């Protein structure tokens, strides 16, 4: 049985207790999206300030468990200042780490984790242990899915 320390790394507890980039932005200029985890009712709102193809700033509000809150906080740090292409790459790596990935039809499909360096992931690597607790994967990915939602809503 995987131990609690696999799940609740120190970085995670830190981001949970001291979430970065918490709060809201007025919309506009920000864009936003709401996400929720039907399993537990957790809810999250992501606000993005985009300039050209760069995420200039991000804020997140909501309620959730330690994994979903810390993952949101970690994500906010990871994507701030990044181009959309960079975010896309990060997302792909993150999903690989969570051992969920999607096929051409957007359908979930288990795949081999692709190649990536830990350096690219940075602090996000702290969430690696979540994969041993499959029910919690949805907690870890909630903020990412909400981020994608915000970007897709804007595109359409």
């Amino acid at each position: 049985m995987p131990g609690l320390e696999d799940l609740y790394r120190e970085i995670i507890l830190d981001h949970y207790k001291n979430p970065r980039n918490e709060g809201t932005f007025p919309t506009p200029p920000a864009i936003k999206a709401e996400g929720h985890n039907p399993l537990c009712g957790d809810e999250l709102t992501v606000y993005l300030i985009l300039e050209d193809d760069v995420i200039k700033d991000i804020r997140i509000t909501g309620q959730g468990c330690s994994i979903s809150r810390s993952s949101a906080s970690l994500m906010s740090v990871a994507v701030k200042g990044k181009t959309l292409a960079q975010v896309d790459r990060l997302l792909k790596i993150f999903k690989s780490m969570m051992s969920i990935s999607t096929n051409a039809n957007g359908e979930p499909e288990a795949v081999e984790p692709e190649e990536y360096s830990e350096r690219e992931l940075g602090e996000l690597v702290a969430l690696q242990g979540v994969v041993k607790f499959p029910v919690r994967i949805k907690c870890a990915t909630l903020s990412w899915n909400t981020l994608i939602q915000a970007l897709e809503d804007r595109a359409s």
Partner: protein
Amino acid sequence: MERMNTPTATSKPLNVSEIRKDFPIFTRHDGRPLYFLDSAASSQKPLSVLQAMDDYYSTTHANVHRGVYQLAEHATELYEGARFKIGRFVGAPNPSREILFTKNATESINLLSTSLTRGPLHRGDVVVLTEMEHHANLVPWLIAKEQFGIEIRYIRIDDNGYLILDEIDKILEDAKVLSVTLTSNVLGTLNPVAKLARLAHKNGAIVIGDGAQYVPHIATDVNELGLDFLAFTGHKMLGPTGIGVLWGKADLLEDLPPFLGGGDMITDVRLDGFTPNELPWKFEAGTPPIAEAIGLGAAVDYLENLGMDRVREHEVALLSYAFEKLESNFGKDITIHGPRNISDRSGVISFDFNNIHPHDISQILDQSGVCVRAGHHCAKPLMRHLGIAATARASFHIYNESADVDALIDALAKAQAFFG
């Protein structure tokens, strides 16, 4: 369980250590201790239930009802015998006609919401529910609203988790259906169903009880409760998955149009129409859950053998013990939802603890082998009323003992230390 105070105890308490020997999971699980406090989601099964099904498959299986040969006849006898037994267990006056087998309590309620809108209900008719219903007693009616156009009214709940009955006359006025849970799977509230049924009947409404969390734990008599229909589910009452029950008054069932169509529920089929079968088969389309009915019959035997009054006393005692322990250990750090009065409660305890998210609580408790449920418990409107997204919930059945509560307390202390 020395420390329990059971003021209403009238009979010999359950011998839990003997009972636990009947449940293979407590010895066959992976070796770690198992403090299973999630019976409200699904109970464990005694060996006698597994054996009844194995024996059936190993000696008597054949499809029921249509076979002339002995094997099929014996299978039919076992299946219909289970129907009879299960009906008697809830006080059905005429079990062999009034007990319908479904796949779960959810299907039982969908059967009603569908057949009622195909039959006696008219567009705009009022169905009364409560704010504390499980999704199983909400979504079928929301579908009926969407597809057919019923109106839904809700009985609200107060801060202590009781139904607010001040305006009940107005709410029930002209209502055609009252469908209410006998006890909340989140708050534990035991609702005053007999009283509600009387009021509803005065208004000419039919009364449906959701007994999913009640029948497994408390002696049930549909007549005393004043119900017209009662839905419950096998897997929460020591029975197998894959079976639910709907009891209904014969004359009401008689007048209801069928639900699912297929074999067994007809007396005749033509290319342009069909004639429904008699009760209860009119509502059982296709091959029924034969082994599951037999398994549920064995579960009922097991419960009756213990005595449902003793089962209830045992759970009240555990509830008292748990309340006392939780409050003396954690004081203001814990908030237990629902009535304070134990005798108004069934054996579930939903709580907030130290603002630690229920997912995290459940995860940390699991590390000590303590299984509690975390989430919205399929009662999102109630959660909204409580102003929270989720709770942690511990729930009891006959195999639980004070050691389970003690383990819960210890594990909560660990969670407190971890996230504190």
